[in-house]
């Protein structure tokens, strides 16, 4: 029986010829990362054991991105703990403010994670790196501490789900709309404990940034990992970035899947997920009555350069609606500089947006754009749970950067065509 790309990567890292769903395996880890929320718990556990060395100082990544620059004293203590730990244990991959970016945009950009890797992160959106053809998944701080000490992690080999995409995307429809559509279709536990493998002509046609977005939100369907077979677009992205040798895996034609879905992307409209679950999706045309107070364009889901480009395309020459604040957050310093070079930042400032340094900030209600009671936001982020961006009685509507930018101009949820016309 053939294996999928996920099974092959897990088998190789478990030192096995083959692995099948349901088996428990102990896998070698290539990169183990944690952020300023999750690292402190792992650090305490490692320090309590009194060890002098970690498993491999070059395989650990510490990314303070959630509450940085430190939003308060307690947050500052957490980042300091990471910095001290990084120094003491000579951790190679630690980025302080000014160098840091949002972890799941930063690690691929810096070539720290590469195709064929097993990556674990004490952050649920670690599944993002599946877009490179890596097995990557979120774990907790204790799993992280264990990996820092042993270089290993246990997994139950997940059941394999396949999503085959075909057809031509409508204008203004991107990776975010596709994944929101799929989560709406299968629900927030529709892929619980399973792999979401995305394939088909419409995936091969998608740029890398959109693929990252699709794999990033696998967890919003409960999945263990999202993954896309590497192709020439992946290689082009990895070239000049990869810091380590990498390996390309492909699924066998006779690999077994527990479920197979076929999706015609030409039928997908820009999507909006209504509160309070990412699966409460509707086409944007059914959401244009919703007035808003805030727009957030950024996050590990949609803070990459192509996201900023599409937002700028819509905001160019326009002003943010007077009833709305629009917060734009480039995900990394490199993206920020690129946006500056291309004149995108100027477009945002001209439109009277707030432009922030890289941070997860508002996505999880941390800082840099918290909602008051009763306020509503359109955000390019990944979760719209109760209280996610602030007050428990505030609301978050998830969308693509295009819909978010159009909504910022209109003061209500809007289709991009309402702002730039149908011909643009």
């Amino acid at each position: 029986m053939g294996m999928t790309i996920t099974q092959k990567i897990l088998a190789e890292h478990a030192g096995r010829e083959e692995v099948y769903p349901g088996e428990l395996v102990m896998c070698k880890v290539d990169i183990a990362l944690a952020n300023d929320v999750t690292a402190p718990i792992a650090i305490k556990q490692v320090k309590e054991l009194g060890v002098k060395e970690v498993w491999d100082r070059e395989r650990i990544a510490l990314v303070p991105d959630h509450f940085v620059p430190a939003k308060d004293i307690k947050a500052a203590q957490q980042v300091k703990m990471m910095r001290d730990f990084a120094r003491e244990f000579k951790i190679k991959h630690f980025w302080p403010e000014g160098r840091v970016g949002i972890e799941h945009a930063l690690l691929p950009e810096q070539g720290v994670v590469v195709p064929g890797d097993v990556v674990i992160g004490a952050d649920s959106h670690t599944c993002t790196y599946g877009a490179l053809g890596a097995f990557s998944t979120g774990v907790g701080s204790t799993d992280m501490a264990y990996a820092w000490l042993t270089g290993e992690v246990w997994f139950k080999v997940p059941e394999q789900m396949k999503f085959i995409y075909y057809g031509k995307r409508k204008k203004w429809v991107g990776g975010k709309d596709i994944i929101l559509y799929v989560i709406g279709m299968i629900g927030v536990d529709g892929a619980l404990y399973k792999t979401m493998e995305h394939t088909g002509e419409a995936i091969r046609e998608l740029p890398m940034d959109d693929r990252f977005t699709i794999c990033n939100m696998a967890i919003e369907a409960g999945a263990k990992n999202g993954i896309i077979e590497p192709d020439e677009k992946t290689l082009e992205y990895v070239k000049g970035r990869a810091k380590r040798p990498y390996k390309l895996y492909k699924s066998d034609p006779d690999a077994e899947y527990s479920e197979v879905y076929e999706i015609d992307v030409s039928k997908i409209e820009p999507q909006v997920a209504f509160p309070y679950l990412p699966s409460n999706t509707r086409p944007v045309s059914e959401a244009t009555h919703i007035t808003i107070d805030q727009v957030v364009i950024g996050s590990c889901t949609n803070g990459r350069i192509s996201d900023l480009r599409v937002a700028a395309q819509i905001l160019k020459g326009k002003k943010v609606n007077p009833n709305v604040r629009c917060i734009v957050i480039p995900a990394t310093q490199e993206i920020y500089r690129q946006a500056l070079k291309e004149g995108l930042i100027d477009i945002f400032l001209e439109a009277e947006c707030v432009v922030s340094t890289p941070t997860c900030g508002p996505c999880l209600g941390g800082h840099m754009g918290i909602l008051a009671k009763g306020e509503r936001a359109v955000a390019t982020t990944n979760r719209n749970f109760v209280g996610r961006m602030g007050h428990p009685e505030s609301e978050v509507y998830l969308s693509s950067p295009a819909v978010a930018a159009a909504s910022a101009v209109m003061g209500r949820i809007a289709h991009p065509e309402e702002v730039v016309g149908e011909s643009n």
Partner: protein
Amino acid sequence: MEGVLKGRAFKFGDDINTDEIIPARYLNTSDPKELAKHVMEDADPKFPEKVKPGDVIVAGKNFGCGSSREHAPIAIKAAGVSAVIAKSFARIFYRNAINIGLPIFESPEAVEGIEEGDIVEVNPETGVIKNLTKGTEYKATPIPSDIRKIIDAGGLMEYAKQKLGLK
């Protein structure tokens, strides 16, 4: 996990997420006592006041979905909750609960058969869940034996100590 776990049931619905269990506005600390003060706050603001040591959380499907924050099971455990019974658990929450030693039990039938305020007793060794108020009995899905080893060691870090010869 030793002895029988017993307490009052607090019922919650489906898809209770980690933002409801412990909102991110409290994640600038990882102190269990601090976290316990806000446990389940965005699902039931009164919960932190009402919960007593031994009490049991009973919830629908996909409990603990969302973030990887271990603060979620830590907050529940530190609040004195003795067990969580759900129709199903989100995968990272499941791992985290096992790793830190918060007893969790999967049983859709028990969840259907327990109402808010019922007195519930769980035997972690056998997975038998008793609703003492209603006189009914259920059996949780058994935990795989390899994972049981982590639980028996007293959590993943204790297991690590054994493995690294630090004990």
